[in-house]
């Protein structure tokens, strides 16, 4: 039975997006705040939703990578890692072995290879402008991989402005969004207009932080804890909040314009990618960025894909 078709891809990408959002809200949003001396009401119940979100992300990722293997072959390895790594937990204490450390490096390097394969496919199919516009995103993921590597190998901390890399990435994808499909059409105008909601949603937080130094200090700690975007200059919190607004705008605009795959792929890439600043935690999160990047290929190579 050939299940690798558009319909499977569509539903599994939808479930992937749903899983990413649920895990971000109920998992990362709460787990990283739990070290603060603030009682979180019903944290145990919220953790159940977090487990649901993560499972949704994990298992839909297996299907997405299997379908995407028709496009970028590296996805065969990714799906193998996702399925196989569920079994490794049968070995007690597997993660303290040198062999597992080596496998972690292998996975990360395969992530880099995946980024390379997608970029190669874009160039091979003469999508030069898309390649250029997505290159800051690739650079961001490479930086995040190095950060995770330095953490896992206990090297000195990477002191770099993640915020600048993130801003460059979102500006690139925003221009990509505008140029993708018809720049001006009824649907495009609706997309540009409706997506403003995504930007506006962060403005109350922006103004709160701008006017209230007390909250600015709190958010300096809370936002990097939740999102993984570490700030080495605490006064950058305002620009980071605006960058998040821009990300939400871009993700919504891309989806409404019709590139639903790239929209979810980009969101998943960022959410999972920034787990690198705390060591990724899970093997699966290491390969989300290249899979998210691969999702840009769906519409880019639409006329060449034979499902």
């Amino acid at each position: 039975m050939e299940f690798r078709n558009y319909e499977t891809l569509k539903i599994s990408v939808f479930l992937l997006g749903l899983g990413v959002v649920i895990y971000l809200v109920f998992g990362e949003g709460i787990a990283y705040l739990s070290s603060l001396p603030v009682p979180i009401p019903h944290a145990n119940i919220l953790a159940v939703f977090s487990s649901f979100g993560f499972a949704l992300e994990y298992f839909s990722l297996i299907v997405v990578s299997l379908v995407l293997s028709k496009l970028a072959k590296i996805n065969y390895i990714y799906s193998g890692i996702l399925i196989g790594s569920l079994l490794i937990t049968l070995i007690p204490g597997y993660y303290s072995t040198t062999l597992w450390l080596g496998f972690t490096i292998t996975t990360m390097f395969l992530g880099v290879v995946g980024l390379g394969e997608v970029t190669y496919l874009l160039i091979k199919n003469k999508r030069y402008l898309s390649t250029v516009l997505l290159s800051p995103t690739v650079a961001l993921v490479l930086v995040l991989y190095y950060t995770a590597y330095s953490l896992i190998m206990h090297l000195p901390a990477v002191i770099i402005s993640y915020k600048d890399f993130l801003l460059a990435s979102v500006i690139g994808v925003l221009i990509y969004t505008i140029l993708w499909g018809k720049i001006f059409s009824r649907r495009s105008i609706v997309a540009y207009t409706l997506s403003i909601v995504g930007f506006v949603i962060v403005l109350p937080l922006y103004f709160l932080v701008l006017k209230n130094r007390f909250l600015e200090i709190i958010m300096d700690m809370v936002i990097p804890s939740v999102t993984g975007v570490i700030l080495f200059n605490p006064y950058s919190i305002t620009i980071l909040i605006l960058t998040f607004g821009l990300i939400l705008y871009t993700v919504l605009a891309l989806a409404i314009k019709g590139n639903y795959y790239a929209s979810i792929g980009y969101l998943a890439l960022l959410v999972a990618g920034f787990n690198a600043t705390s060591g990724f935690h899970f093997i699966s999160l290491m390969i989300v960025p290249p899979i998210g990047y691969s999702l840009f290929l769906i519409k880019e190579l639409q006329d060449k894909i034979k499902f």
Partner: protein
Amino acid sequence: MFKSKSALVIAIVILGVSVFAMFFQIPYAQTSPTIVAYKVVGTSNLGNPGSESFWSKIPWVNLSLTANIPNAPTSGLVKYVLVKAAWNGTDLFILEEWQSPSPAYGAWSDSAAAIYPEATGPDTFRIIELTPGVTYKLLTNYTNYVSIINGKTETGRLLLNYSGITLPLPNDTQIQTLPNGTILLYHSPRPLEDLLYSDGMFYGYYVNSTWYYPDRAAIMWYLGTGVPSQDCMNLGGKVPDQTYDGFTLKYAGGSMAESGIATNIWMWVTGATWNSTNDPAFKVNLWQNTSLTGLSYTDPHNHGFAVPLYSNNTNLYEVDTAGIWYTPVKSSGLNGSLFYIWTGATWENGTWVLEWVYPLNVPSDYLPYFVNITANKIYYVAFAVWQGTEGETAFDKSISPSFVTLELVNQAPPTSTTTSTTSPMVSTTSPATTTIVEIPFTDIVVTIAGVIVAIVAVAILALLYRK
């Protein structure tokens, strides 16, 4: 709706497994950093911690620390702690190193001083700095209250106000206003810490050249079989549901926040457990005096130690019968428990080096409260560090944001090339230490092997799908 039956089946399976995951734990492969305690030959040298030859073979694990109180400028000042571990069959050794520009020499533990006033240093104190913008008012209709304002005793009750949020203070509260309007509140009772923090009025602890808290370090061990999700402790009173000046405080301060978990905490503090002439308690031989400690035993060999604590959802307890710092966990037994965990520490060139020694053959009556450590088993540990002279005090500290794993293995340590160099900083009065951590040889091999495996995997894939 679904033209493809396979898509429908796949969607149902994904959703089904995800719902299953809500109630049953799915074992996803992790990448957590782990502290590995290698099997070594040798014993500790607490007079010169870290000098033992086996330590040079073990690489440091760099654990990032975070602020316990996110809005306090005095919290989270120690950005990372370096940790390594070893065991020799009978004892577990843990070595910690962290940067601390000025050590809290002479600082005293008020708990130790409470049983022997001689165990104090000059002027050290706990003073809370209130959030800028907090104002105060004296409610003179409270004629049975007195308050001390700027050194003057006045009749009435103090009322704090922060952006419309008001907090009446207990009888005999002492405050002082600085020329810039900052309000300092003397003493730091646990319930008041909770009330001030909950109302956004706790800004941090106030320090100057003579007022500061001791330096302190702690290791928290999770006692349980599952996986703990958080190492957070509650703010609160002395006991659960304590009534304090008209307020009921739900939790006991220091009790564990995560439901159903218990921990064993080892606490080292320069003002009481550091075997040094700079430690006021050791200076006056407090731990050799049973009539002062109320214990039937003394500190054997007068070595440094770590106070054993036990925390569950009810309270934070001291694992001995004296209860010098916290409520004693038992009223009898536990002979020798206060001095069971040995420590040795030195401060040099802006860095603390602290070694902990934990005998693995834990007496059975200690066991409900002490961690029972055996080889080849994963333990969950968390670390905390206080820089007293910088303001980190009591619940305001630098902590590892979650538990990390630690395991005793039967392997000998790998070959490591970790080095540490000291270089004086130009134009400053205090020297700074730069720790250069080179990649251990095994890590280089692992990296190269990992990349080769990835290349081989890609090559096989390319061969399979070549046109």
